[in-house]
């Protein structure tokens, strides 16, 4: 294990809130506003950490465990995803499945914490969240399976460095389909606009927000921070599939960081240019992403 393997987790835990700042700034610029500073998310987290927490009498330990376990699972997942030229801290065949399941664990604890409050409103959000992730998860797993088939490696650290320009030239359609599918999963799993609007607090439009309404102070900070790291992780996975590898390690790391910034700008542009989909149309979008992944798998199978 080299020292450079520490880079991906360190970057993820330090730069993740900045990604949110870039998205917000892009939206502000497109709308003609100045917008909050790029580091606003860090200030918000610091403010929330200094506050106390209020717990409802109806909640149990499940409610308090949710944010802690959720953040722990996401942080653990940062050790599985390679970034730039540096491979991940932990790499073994099948770690991509562990990655998907760690994200699922985060979702599970958030959902049971929401159900633990006994609020029908949060139960509704939990139900929607679970429904949509049921459709998003096959798209993610099948997309990764297509890449694994192409690169011949079952480990994220094994498949990402193999996706050089030469491999892309050979299998551009397959990989482009996977990138498109993962982009939809990236937007859906992080509650960005075509699926969920992160800025509203209107009862009919919320998915992620509605589940964390009863959390406050440090708990909310943990949840928001966990969501930011999850945004970074899925983004890093998407960027990892692009042909940015090979050559100078510093150069490819810089390229990966630049690509993450570009991804955040793209997310901001998508959010500025389109409205949230109607709730009944979201499954269609996610099934469409799954179809793209299946297509990639079938093309790779031939």
């Amino acid at each position, binding site marked *: 294990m080299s020292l450079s393997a520490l880079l991906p987790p360190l970057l993820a835990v330090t730069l993740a809130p900045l990604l949110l700042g870039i998205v917000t700034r892009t939206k502000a610029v497109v709308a003609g506003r100045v917008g909050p500073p790029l580091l606003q998310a860090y200030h918000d987290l610091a403010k929330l950490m200094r506050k106390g927490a209020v717990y409802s009498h109806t909640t149990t330990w499940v409610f308090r465990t949710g944010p802690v376990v959720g953040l722990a699972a996401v942080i653990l997942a940062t050790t599985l995803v390679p970034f730039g030229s540096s491979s991940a801290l932990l790499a073994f065949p099948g770690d991509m499945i562990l990655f998907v399941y760690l994200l699922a664990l985060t979702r599970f604890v958030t959902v049971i914490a929401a159900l633990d409050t006994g609020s029908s409103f949060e139960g509704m959000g939990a139900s929607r969240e679970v429904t949509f992730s049921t459709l998003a998860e096959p798209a993610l797993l099948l997309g990764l399976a297509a890449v694994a088939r192409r690169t011949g490696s079952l480990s994220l650290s094994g498949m990402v460095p193999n996706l050089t320009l030469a491999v892309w030239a050979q299998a551009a*359609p397959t990989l482009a389909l996977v990138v498109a599918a993962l982009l939809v999963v990236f937007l859906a799993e992080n509650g960005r606009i075509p699926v969920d609007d992160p800025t509203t607090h209107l009862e009919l439009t919320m998915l992620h927000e509605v589940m964390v309404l009863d959390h406050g102070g440090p708990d909310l900070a943990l949840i928001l921070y966990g969501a930011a790291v999850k945004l970074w992780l899925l983004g890093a996975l998407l960027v990892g599939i692009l042909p940015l590898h090979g050559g100078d390690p510093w150069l490819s790391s810089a390229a990966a960081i630049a690509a993450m910034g570009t991804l955040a700008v793209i997310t901001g542009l998508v959010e500025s240019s389109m409205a949230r989909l109607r709730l009944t149309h979201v499954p269609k979008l996610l*099934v*469409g992403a799954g*179809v793209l992944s299946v*297509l990639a798998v*079938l093309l790779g*199978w*031939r």
Partner: protein
Amino acid sequence: MGAGIDTVLICIVLTSFLLLGSSRIGTCIRVVALQGALLGFLTLAANADSSLRAPILALASTGLKGIAFPWLLSRALRDADVRREVEPFVGYSLSLLIGTATLAAALWLAARLPRPNPEVSSLIVPVALFTTLVGLFLIISRRKALMQVLGYLVLENGIYTFGVGLVEGTPMLVELGVLLDLFVAVFVMGITVFHINREFDHIDTDQLTALKG
């Protein structure tokens, strides 16, 4: 060269999925137009020799399928003045899943079909089968008569793809004759849709079963 054909073929598959998933008739007409234009590219990419046959065919098929038919059908849609929803018998998500299963079946079937001569691309037979089956599926699963015209066009696109990839020496006269037949068929269907609508105030084909002789 081979990668170019594969890209065009995958785009044809994606347009078929778009047809299965979209809910507006207007969108469907535009997607079928795009598919027709893609077929023109496919003709050009598959016949790289310098004869005049491929460009003429590509031009004729793009002109008809990409411009003339969409214009005719859009006019029929506007004149019929009906609700612009597809109103499927089978839901959109289920349609997409059925499409995926169809694609897998087409790939499986194409892998065990004996083929006479080396073809341009190994994807061409599965894509042709898939497009044909999607056309059939659209015809039986959508309620509006206009969607059945579109399904028929997609079906024909599949057969055309088959011809591009496999039959090297189809005389141009035959290909152009097929295009002319298609043109007449769509022309007549466009007029029929308009007349059905004027007679019954809707173009729902499932109500035909209520007719008694």
